[in-house]
């Protein structure tokens, strides 16, 4: 918080104060006039003076009218002096652990002092009196002794006019006043804290909103520019490349079918090659389009409750002819893993189609490509002193995942290259392009789609030769919503 802290009284109050352990001051939380009004009602009701002091001894409320006997003794200088001493003693006497004490006056009258407590701390005191205790008849000897020039008969007469109060009755009054005051202090403190926090939370929200707006404005400008570039690019690719290519494919197909007259065996072979390469080129362009959609974040995802088993079955049956042709054994193990995923089945099919196609491509004749699935529960035992282990009781169920591995017995990927193969157009050995074909787009598309599903894809070595692609996808319980589109890579 950068704004200066507001002040109450002379004390600066920060939001932290209200959640810390700061002593509450009556003068900070209670309205002085209302407090006085309440004390006055007590005085009117029982005829007893009420004074309220803060913990520091400041007089906060003074509802008092002088008794006739007090006026009388105050007319004499010795009486005035003694009265002052008594009043200041009553003001500062310790009400003890019980918080309730009687302080006697030399006139025979008395004061009752009750502590005000809040959250276990003394925050002030109430002084009731002077009043005449129930048993009081005549002035005690201390009056004559202290104020020698006083007319004692007159003093006794005035003393007799003061209403007598039984100690139990006064205790009840004191208790009532104390409880009421403490309640008022509590409610006022509560209101004080609430307003403090309202202020704090408004300020925090404002700050957060400002930050967010700035970020959004920046992002918007960037996106607009990107959007324009991507649209141009997409338009160029689809129009400039696909249109002539379609003609090439179409005409070569017609030639191969002999529509323009019979072809020799050699001519027919050449035309079929043109047709085949044309289809390959179209595949590349479609891959580029996919990648460009991924980059611009326009590849849509349709979230649905999905099981992994049917997706893999379909992939295997699609690619079985390719495997057969290449004489590579393609198998799907543990195909009945039941764990609900929340994902786009079509995109997931694309992921595994790419991975298996890739594996088949790099596996020599007589090799093996195997798909395996299993469910991981993701609970690690308590180990080192690390935040990541904390709360596993709560977090473990969120870490349920489905793991699919695609292992082959092909040429393998050196460990130093394993993170780079997911970059677009990257191939471990550019010479392999010539030997095995391919554009190097497939794996980057795979990674983007898996990332969008909140999953991970990693590469491990397959002993003694080959590669294992490990795809982990969170269960439906762990991941609530899929983004509606595959998010563009960070930084774009």
């Amino acid at each position: 918080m950068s704004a200066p802290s507001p002040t109450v009284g002379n004390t600066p109050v920060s939001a932290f104060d209200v959640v810390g352990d700061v002593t509450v001051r009556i003068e900070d939380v209670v309205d002085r006039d209302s407090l006085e009004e309440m004390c006055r009602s007590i005085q009117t009701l029982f005829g007893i003076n009420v004074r309220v002091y803060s913990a520091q001894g400041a007089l906060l409320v003074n509802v008092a009218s002088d008794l006739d006997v007090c006026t009388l003794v105050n007319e004499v200088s010795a009486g005035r002096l003694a009265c002052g001493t008594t009043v200041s003693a009553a003001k500062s006497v310790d009400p003890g652990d019980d918080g309730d004490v009687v302080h006697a006056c030399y006139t025979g009258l008395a004061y009752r002092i009750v502590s005000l407590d809040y959250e276990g701390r003394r925050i002030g005191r109430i002084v009731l009196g002077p009043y005449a205790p129930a048993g009081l008849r005549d002035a005690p000897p201390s009056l004559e002794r202290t104020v020698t020039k006083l007319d004692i008969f007159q003093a006794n007469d005035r003393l007799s006019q003061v209403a007598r109060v039984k100690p139990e009755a006064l205790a009840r009054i004191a208790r009532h006043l104390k409880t009421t005051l403490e309640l008022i202090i509590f409610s006022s403190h509560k209101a004080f804290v609430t307003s403090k926090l309202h202020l704090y939370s408004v300020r925090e929200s404002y700050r957060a909103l400002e930050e967010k707006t700035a970020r959004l404005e920046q992002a918007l400008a960037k996106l607009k520019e990107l959007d324009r570039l991507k649209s141009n690019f997409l338009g160029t690719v689809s129009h400039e490349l696909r249109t002539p290519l379609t003609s090439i494919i179409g005409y070569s197909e017609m030639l191969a079918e002999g529509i323009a007259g019979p072809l020799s065996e050699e001519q027919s072979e050449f035309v079929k090659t043109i047709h085949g390469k044309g289809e390959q080129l179209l595949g590349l362009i479609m891959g580029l389009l996919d990648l460009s959609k991924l980059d611009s974040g326009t590849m849509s995802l349709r979230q649905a409750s999905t099981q992994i088993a049917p997706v893999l079955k379909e992939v295997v049956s699609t690619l079985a002819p390719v495997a057969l042709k290449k004489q590579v054994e393609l198998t799907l193990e543990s195909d009945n893993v039941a764990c609900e995923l929340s994902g786009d089945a079509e995109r997931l099919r694309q992921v595994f189609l790419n991975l298996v196609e890739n594996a088949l491509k790099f596996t020599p004749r007589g090799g093996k490509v195997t798909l395996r699935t299993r469910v991981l529960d993701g609970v690690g035992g308590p180990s080192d002193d690390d935040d990541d282990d904390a709360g596993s009781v709560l977090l473990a169920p969120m870490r349920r995942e489905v793991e699919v591995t695609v292992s082959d017995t092909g040429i393998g990927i050196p460990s130093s290259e394993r993170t780079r193969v997911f970059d677009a157009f990257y191939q471990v050995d550019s010479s392999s392009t010539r030997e095995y074909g391919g554009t190097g787009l497939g794996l980057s598309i795979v990674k983007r789609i898996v990332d969008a599903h909140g999953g991970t894809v990693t590469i491990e070595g397959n002993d003694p030769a080959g590669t294992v692609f490990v795809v982990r996808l969170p269960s439906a319980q762990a991941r609530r919503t899929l983004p509606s589109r595959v998010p563009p890579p960070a930084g774009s």
Partner: protein
Amino acid sequence: MQLNFAAREVAIKLVYYGPALSGKTTNLKALHELVREGSRGRLMTLETKDDRTLFFDMLPLVFKAETDAGSMSLRVKVFTVPGQVVHSSTRRLVLQGADGIVFVADSQTAETENNAESFLDLRANLKELGRSLSKMPMVIQFNKRDLPNVRTDDEIDDLARRGKEPVYKACAMRGEGVLECFFGLLDRSWQRLDAEHDLKAKLGLGPAAFLEMAAASLGHAGKAAALSAACVGGQRPGGPAT
């Protein structure tokens, strides 16, 4: 912790954290009911119209302790945080200066995700305050044990034994498990403070004595150790798992 030698006062702050509607306020209300009147202040609840906690609840517990070094005043302020996701800044504010945390989780299996999310929120908030979960005394409470569709005792026990934090089971609505959990945290928090600030030497009050004294003041004399130990899992600092 605030230690005021002049006033012979120690104030510690405990915070009940957890997802919305997991029963943090109910815990505090139950705690208020279960402790002796003389040792508790008023429960301050800052709530909105629909009874959801807007900012926080706070219950002050205050008691005197006779130690070897004389009389001390011990103040325990117990706070809850607002559970709703939007009140993140308030949660961070309330967490400031906390000496221990009870994480109140909802036992219903449907709440698993909310529990986890709230826990990660706690971790992130602590990090932002420059504090680490691994150094924060903490206990986990699985509340609402009386409801149907809850994670079973066996499941919780199993997870608890593998986790780090002691786990208490509770039904705060009926006041069950509330004291156990509170004393469990008070115990661990004081042990941590004692280790960090050498309170035994400074105040003449050891952890076991402190806990027993607190229990006695709160009206549960002689039960402190048993209450604190009524949990599953949790590796005690310097000792084997209980």
